[in-house]
């Protein structure tokens, strides 16, 4: 592939640099870039609030009494729920203040735990979101993050408990990377099929998801089952030498993995925007035809892109096993696969954006757990809000119409291809 690049003619109008200059041009000012996602989030939360009020029997009872008390009950329901969302994800300010005043270390840790727990939740999101974003940049739609994550987690778990007697400095990275390799393999299958036969990765990655679920189900109840679990699909606990350390005493779960995730976000940014290889990949993603004329090998990029994307998804599984769960069970994922698509798109497929949106959704999901306890709102409301935010981010015209924003001079370019890829 390197040779291909060197052979390309100089000053070709379709040269990757030229193609991408357009994109760089309307980097625009910071506000215009961030206003759409921000307004989308606000609108999503507003619609979530309406959903909370509209599905609350108490509100209907109150409306039966009088219109005014209905409105009042609706607002109090929303307030209680969103307050629980806030204290569950950021922390209770009063409690934090008291803890700091008392000066007890453990009390402080536990008071800021909601915030730290949000970061714990955000960690796999960062990896999964990066996986999808990288795919999009290469013109690939990876809906298979969930399956890649399961395979990655299974690999990491296996290396985690089956390999014994290694020092931490070797064992932990080994198990971590094993997860990445597992995910990479799972992603590569879809990339290979797309490059060689033109089969669309959307369907194939979804099929691979289901195959991965069944496969891990079989692994966990068969070859990888915990001795004495009585047929429960759960793996043995990983060796201590494979664990990613948590910083604070239990119940605070905040762990080194968050910083590993940030490091990976930086690495992906560097690869995508600072290396020739990343440039080629983005060129293939924006304009495969031009990339072909420029002498880039689209098929190779597709395969590598899909494998890399899968590797990141696999690492999301690794990190969750090695740092938090410490053994693998079937309920590993709370739907990271679809969530990650929203994360990538809301983050504009940029690693920094992905980190920010991951922290946002980690926070939301963490707070939603508390909201479920306090006001019996199913945690799946997060998915609904996510879908709505995603819709607004994908169709900025709706947000602009809602908030009377002016249209930017140049419409954003969609990054990836449409159709079933048969005509490639």
């Amino acid at each position, binding site marked *: 592939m390197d040779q291909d690049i060197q052979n390309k003619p100089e000053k070709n109008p379709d040269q990757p640099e030229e193609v991408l200059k357009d994109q760089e041009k309307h980097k625009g000012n910071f506000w215009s870039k961030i206003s759409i996602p921000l307004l989308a989030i606000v609108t999503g939360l507003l619609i979530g609030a309406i959903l909370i009020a509209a599905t609350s029997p108490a509100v209907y009872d109150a409306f039966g009494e009088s219109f005014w008390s209905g409105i009042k009950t609706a607002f109090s329901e929303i307030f209680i729920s969103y307050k629980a969302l806030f204290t569950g994800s950021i922390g209770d300010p009063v409690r934090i203040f008291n803890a700091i005043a008392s000066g007890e270390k453990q009390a402080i840790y536990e008071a800021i735990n909601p915030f730290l727990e949000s970061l714990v939740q955000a960690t796999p999101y960062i990896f999964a979101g990066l996986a999808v974003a990288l795919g999009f940049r290469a013109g690939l739609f990876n809906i298979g993050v969930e399956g890649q994550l399961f395979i990655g987690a299974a690999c990491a778990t296996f290396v985690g408990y089956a390999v014994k007697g290694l020092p931490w400095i070797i064992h932990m990275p080994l198990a971590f990377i094993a997860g990445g390799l597992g995910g990479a393999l799972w992603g590569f299958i879809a990339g290979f099929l797309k490059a060689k036969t033109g089969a669309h990765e959307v369907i194939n990655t979804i099929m691979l*998801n*289901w195959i991965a679920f069944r496969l891990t189900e079989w692994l966990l109840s068969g070859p990888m089952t915990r001795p004495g679990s009585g047929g429960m699909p759960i793996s043995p606990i990983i060796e201590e030498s494979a664990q990613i350390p948590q910083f604070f005493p239990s119940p605070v779960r905040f762990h080194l993995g968050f910083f590993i995730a940030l490091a990976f976000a930086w690495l992906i940014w560097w690869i995508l925007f600072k290396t020739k290889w990343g440039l080629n990949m983005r060129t293939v993603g924006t304009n495969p035809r031009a990339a072909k004329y420029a002498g880039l090998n689209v098929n190779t990029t597709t395969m590598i892109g899909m494998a890399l994307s899968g590797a990141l998804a696999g690492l999301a599984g690794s990190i969750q096993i090695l740092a938090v769960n410490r053994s693998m069970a079937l309920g590993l994922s709370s739907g990271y696969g679809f969530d990650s698509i929203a994360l990538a798109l809301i983050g504009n497929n940029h690693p920094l954006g992905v980190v920010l949106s991951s922290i946002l959704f980690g926070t939301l999901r963490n707070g939603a757990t508390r909201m479920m306890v306090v006001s019996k*709102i199913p945690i799946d*409301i997060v998915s609904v809000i996510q879908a709505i935010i995603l819709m607004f981010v994908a169709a900025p015209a709706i947000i602009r119409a809602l908030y009377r924003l002016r249209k930017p001079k140049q419409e954003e370019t969609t990054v990836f291809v*449409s159709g079933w890829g048969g005509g490639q």
Partner: protein
Amino acid sequence: MGIIELLISLLIFLVFVRTVAPDVVTTFVMTPGGIDIGTIGDWILPSRLTLIILGVLCLLISIFQLIKGFGRGTNGMVGLCALLLIFGFLTWQASDRSLNLAGMLTSAVLLAVPITLGAFSGLISERAGVINIAIEGMMLMASMVGALIGSITQNAWVGLLGAIGAAVLLALIHAVLSIKYKINQVISGTVINIFSAGMTAFISQKFLQTNQALNRPPLFPRVPIPGLAHIPVVGPILFNTNMFVYLMFAFLIILQVALFSTRWGLRHRAVGEHPKAADTLGINVIRTRYTAVLLSGIVAGVAGAFFTLGSVGRFDEGITAGKGFIGLAAMIFGNWNPIGSLGAGLLFGFADAIGSKLSLLGSKIPAQFMAMAPYLITMIVLAGFIGRGQAPAADGEPYDKE
């Protein structure tokens, strides 16, 4: 393709024939349980001889394919070989035992219903140039709403209408997002899939699980068709079954005729192939596409209703289990044609049925691997056929009227 057929025949010879004891018979029970009209006796086949015959048939097909080729019939012949392989596999697995083949076929047809309807739903919209990967989400939402409304009214028909209404509403969102706002159709579909997964889980946990009375819809009963139900083998499987099976065939005929023999169908397809030309000829591209997506929603609604009103009788989270996506694969395998989609749907349904039946039979293959079969087959089919198929030329392209 000839290579695949050759491999199938080799598989039959080298694995199945070799491991079957010479004098063993396979018994196929030819009457599904609980049916008393149109019954016949069991089929008792010598396992080994049957397998040899199947192998030879595949071999002949593969040789013909390699030398002359079947042209337009290629997909069909590969499908036939796959069927022979499945039949051989069953003969092999059930040797020295008995297997209710008719019962299996009945459940295969039922399992094929959502897949085939999903494929129909997809092809209606894609023939007009709008990719619809939201079928899964529409089906999921429809099955939930169908269960909910069916339970409240205790009327399966009202439930069905509710299901269709829900799916059409989602289809409308898909249409507005992808036609009016021209956002990438795959993303628009994903929005709907995420939304449906979240919303159905939300409502299910908030209402259906806390109040079981809201999740007990009446089922559509089995309706024997007079006369036809008495035909042996075919009768019990196709004509003494669920209303949804008849609906599936009705949709097949309607679609086949409407798409390929009416002016409406010609216009519809023109919009999918070359919207600009169609526009020049005075066809309203935008309206045609809206109609297509909404019709696609109706069919997806019926498919979704099948889960809760036609087969399971209650809603569970994620009840559709990827059937909508398999339906899309069936559409591609079926070359965006109703008849082909039905064939592919039946094949996938069959693969599904085998998995559940064989685990009952005490097969040594773990149940999880059997459950992978439909997904694996989908991937193989996609890999083998996508380049050959004729996707509508403007599939996935938003239309910009200058």
